[in-house]
C-alpha cells in the first residue's frame, strides 16, 4: 500500500524557513500571505501499514519538534 507522510514543525516552534518564504512573497507581488510553515512530504510503499505510526515516531519525524500525519493512498 502506498502512503504519504506529512511532517511539519510543531505549533509554537519558530520555523525560519517559513519566515524566509513569507518575507520573499511581497517582493513578487503576493501580498497578504501569513503564517507560512515549511514541512516535508515522505512517500513510501509498505506491506504493513499498521507499523507506519511507529515508523514515523522512531525515524521520519522527531516528535519533540515535529507533528506528522499519515495518509494511506489506495491503489
Amino acid at each position, binding site marked *: 500500500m502506498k502512503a504519504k507522510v506529512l511532517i511539519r514543525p510543531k505549533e509554537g516552534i519558530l520555523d*525560519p524557513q517559513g519566515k524566509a518564504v513569507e518575507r520573499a512573497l511581497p517582493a513578487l507581488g503576493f501580498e497578504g500571505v501569513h503564517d507560512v510553515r515549511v514541512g516535508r512530504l515522505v512517500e513510501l510503499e509498505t506491506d504493513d501499514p499498521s507499523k507506519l505510526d511507529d515508523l514515523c515516531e522512531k525515524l521520519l519525524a522527531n516528535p519533540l519538534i515535529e507533528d506528522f500525519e499519515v495518509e494511506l493512498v489506495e491503489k
Partner: protein
Amino acid sequence: MIGVIQFPGSCDERDALSAVERVGEGRLVWHEETDLTGLDGIIVPGGFSYGDYLRAGAIARFSPAMEAVKRFAAGGGPVLGICNGFQVLCEAALLPGALLPNEGLRFICRQVELVAEDFTGPFGSAIGAGDRLSIPVKHMSGRYFAPDEDLDRMEAEGRIAFRYAPGDNPNGSVGDIAGVVNEAGNVLGLMPHPEHAVDPLTGSDHGLALFRALASASQAAAA
C-alpha cells in the same frame, strides 16, 4: 584510551583525535565497530553523518557503533558529543532536547564566548563554574530546543553545561544554551567545537579544557 567515532560524512574526527592526543591517547572507531573494549571515553564528532538526511543526526543514531555507545554510556562511561555529535546524541535520546535550524537560517562559522555553568557529573567537576571559553561554532542546525518543563527540570538538576555569553547567542538557542549533560552527567553534548580551539595559533586553546575533562573522566571511569 579515547575512541572517536567516525561515520560516513564525519569531518571533524581527525581534529578531535589530534586534540585528544594533546592530553592522552586515542583512536578512531569506524561506525560499523560494535566492540568498544579497551576504550575509557568516547567522542561523537562533528560533521554531516550519513549526509544528515531527514534531520541532522537522525540516521547516525541507528549505526552499529551508536548502539555500542548507548551501552557504554549506560555503564557510566564518559561520552562527549560535539556539534553533529550533539545532534546525534539528542536523536538517540542520550541527551534531552533537539537541535533546530538556526534562527537566521544561515550557516554560522565564528568564534563565540561560552560560560560554563555549575553542572553535574565528571565533566562538571573538571570544568570550573563561571569559566569563560572562547571556542568556534560552525553549524546550520544549532538552535537548542527543549520543552519548558524539561528545561525547568534540567535547570534544577544542574544539567545545563554551557551557555553562550550574554549577547553572543548565534543561533536562537533557548536560554542561550550551548551544551547540556544527561541525568548522570557522564554524557555531554555541545554545539561549539573545542577541537578547533587547542592552540593559540588558531585563536585560542580554551577547547583543551574539554579534552582534559574527558581524559580525567575516562581515568575515573576506568579505575
